[in-house]
């Protein structure tokens, strides 16, 4: 058995069935060994998308996503995907080939210091120096990626290590890392304080972030909220934690969120932040929140607590455990005045945006699309105006809403949707992107055709990089620079070139029936929607 066989064996032991990758000489021993297993390798068309696909896969399965690339440019191409996963705490194990270990540091062909380059975007990284280390490193990597605050782990393996014989392969039963022991159980004294504050509060509010979904605590959140009738708002990453038609859900906060969600934030006297970073896009001035509000911040990462805003009650631990512990005590409370107050705000909400007729209204389209989608469908939003519209008008049911929140990486939706569909082929998976983000990853259409991963793609075409155009309209008085997408291809021909059925929606007329046929189609499908080039988010 050689090192490459050992890596593959470790992947099997971790229950990996699918990986996404791109070969090169330095990772060839690995891709040779993988042929002897049942693990399926999906060949992407650019390494960045291997990481995005692994991210989509991880977010649907709840398991660690795996991507594999070669040394040098293969590895550096991965970085954006790794950074995207890191910003959203998605568990990945990224394996890169590396040049011969004796040549490290001498700038030979396709050498890049990938552990150094990716350092600030990984939870941890390894450069394998001895073949005997492989089982321990693989075990640790999967453990680190999937526990505590999840995130990507990078393993860089020189080609000579992959080819070296390993004696006595034994996969460790458990990890023994004294320095890495994430806190999972909330502190009992702190938890008691939550219930005390809840009994005292008049206007409590839960702010749910992506951590709720990552820790698998969606049901627990809903139970907790319903039990005491506590209203819930969410961050972008928390979309989907509560169904849109739940009377206790008051939408996404932030400068692109619902105004009633932000009003609820401002007026609440007890804010329970769960698995959210309190980042700049969600809360423009974090100081505003905490002034006279009792702030409870629950997160598995102690460094997030107090980073942007000082909490009254910090609780470190896994959200699922914390909900379970909180449920042990019962608090008498009645917040019906508060929720009816918020309901009045919700009724007053008016869309400020005034779409021109003659084009597809993306907000109407997204609402209709998500209502018609299967209950458990996966909706992958890209980045740009399409993301803002998706966040505002996606109707969450029991499915999943995936997007690149922290990093805002354009081109995320198609590869992530491929990963999601691969993870659960029976589920409906729809990628929604703009004409800019589509062109950033349209090369992956070949991946989905080659591996028979039939995702459905919506392209909002407005001929502009719309979100930047809107920003330049507001900030630079309409002096547009670098946002005109003239020269884009005819999407019907692109679809035809790949053999993907295609349809075009020119305006709102017939929207419903076209969405129906789009969703009903068996294989992949591309639907282009023609938008007003001057359409805005706000």
């Amino acid at each position, binding site marked *: 058995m050689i090192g490459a066989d050992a890596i593959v064996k470790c992947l099997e032991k971790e229950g990996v069935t699918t990986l996404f990758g791109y070969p090169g000489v330095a990772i060839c021993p690995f891709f040779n060994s993988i042929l002897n297993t049942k693990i399926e390798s999906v060949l992407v068309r650019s390494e960045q998308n291997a990481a995005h696909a692994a991210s989509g896969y991880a977010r649907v399965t709840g398991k660690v996503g795996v991507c594999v690339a070669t040394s040098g440019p293969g590895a550096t191409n991965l970085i954006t995907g790794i950074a995207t996963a890191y910003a959203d705490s998605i568990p990945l194990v990224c394996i890169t080939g590396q040049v011969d270990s004796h040549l490290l540091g001498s700038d030979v062909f396709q050498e890049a210091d990938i552990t150094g380059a990716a*350092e600030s975007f990984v939870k941890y990284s390894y450069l394998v120096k001895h073949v005997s280390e492989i089982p321990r490193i693989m075990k640790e990597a999967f453990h680190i990626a999937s526990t505590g605050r999840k995130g990507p782990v990078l393993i860089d393996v020189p080609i000579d290590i992959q080819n070296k014989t390993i004696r006595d392969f034994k996969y460790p039963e458990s990890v023994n890392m004294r320095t890495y022991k994430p806190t999972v159980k909330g502190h009992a004294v702190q938890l008691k304080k939550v219930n005390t504050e809840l009994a005292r509060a008049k206007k409590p509010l839960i702010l749910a972030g992506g951590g709720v979904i990552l820790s698998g605590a969606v049901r627990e959140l809903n139970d907790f909220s319903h039990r005491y009738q506590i209203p819930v708002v969410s961050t972008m990453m928390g979309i989907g934690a509560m169904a849109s038609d739940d009377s206790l859900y008051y939408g996404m906060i932030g400068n692109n969120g619902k105004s009633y969600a932000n009003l609820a934030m401002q007026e609440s006297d007890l804010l329970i932040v769960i698995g959210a970073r309190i980042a700049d896009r969600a809360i423009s001035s974090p100081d505003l929140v905490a002034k006279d509000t009792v702030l409870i911040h629950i997160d598995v990462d102690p*460094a997030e607590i107090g*980073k942007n805003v000082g909490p009254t009650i910090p609780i470190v631990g896994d959200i699922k455990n914390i909900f379970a512990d909180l449920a042990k005590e019962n608090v008498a409370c009645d917040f019906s005045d508060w929720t009816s107050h918020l309901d009045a705000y919700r009724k007053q909400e008016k869309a400020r945006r005034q779409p021109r007729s003659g084009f597809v209204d993306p907000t109407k389209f997204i609402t209709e699309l998500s209502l018609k989608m299967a209950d458990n469908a996966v909706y992958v939003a890209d980045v740009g105006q399409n993301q803002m519209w998706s966040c505002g008008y996606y109707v969450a049911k029991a499915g999943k809403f995936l997007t690149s929140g922290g990093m805002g990486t354009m081109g995320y939706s198609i590869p992530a949707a491929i990963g999601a569909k691969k993870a659960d082929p029976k589920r409906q998976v729809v990628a929604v992107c703009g004409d800019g983000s589509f062109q950033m990853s349209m090369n992956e259409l070949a991946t989905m055709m080659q591996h028979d991963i039939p995702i459905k793609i919506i392209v909002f075409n407005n001929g502009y990089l719309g979100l930047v155009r809107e920003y330049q309209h507001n900030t630079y008085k309409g002096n547009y620079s670098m946002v005109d997408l003239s020269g884009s291809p005819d999407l019907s021909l692109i679809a035809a070139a790949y053999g993907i059925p295609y349809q075009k929606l020119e305006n709102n007329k017939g929207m419903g029936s076209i969405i129906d046929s789009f969703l009903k189609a068996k294989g992949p499908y591309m639907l282009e929607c023609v938008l007003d080039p001057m359409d805005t988010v706000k």
Partner: protein
Amino acid sequence: MIRVIQLIVDNTSGVLSRISGLFSRRGYNIESITAGITSDPRFTRITIVTSGDEDILEQIEKQVAKLIDVRDIRVLKPGESVYRELVLFKVGVGADKRQSLVTICDVFRAKIVDITKDSIIIELTGDQPKINAFIEMLNDYKILEIARTGIAGLRRGSEGVVEIN
């Protein structure tokens, strides 16, 4: 506010760059950083002198503690700890003023470790106030070069001993 932080870290390759990289990308200050092996060769002791307001210092501790190579992190508080730094001074001085410089060195218990016709090298060990006071006295002379090691520190007494194994 200045704070002295002591880390015990796994002696893995790249550990120092992981720690210094964290400081630079998050915009934390490093006044000085020293690293050396402990009695157990698997571990390195790192002493970092950093500065910032209370919130920043708290973030520094939390972010450093998150690094997987870090086994132990603690603050070396001034009253409870001993700090030492070693400094080498090369002073341009001829025979005429040499004797007065030697007198200053005696008072500070500094050692003269090298001497040429027109310069001497002085070795001084001490805490920050002592070193600053010495530098002030040297201002009357021509300091050619200074090499400082940065602070090493230990907590006093047997209580603060970090158990590692």
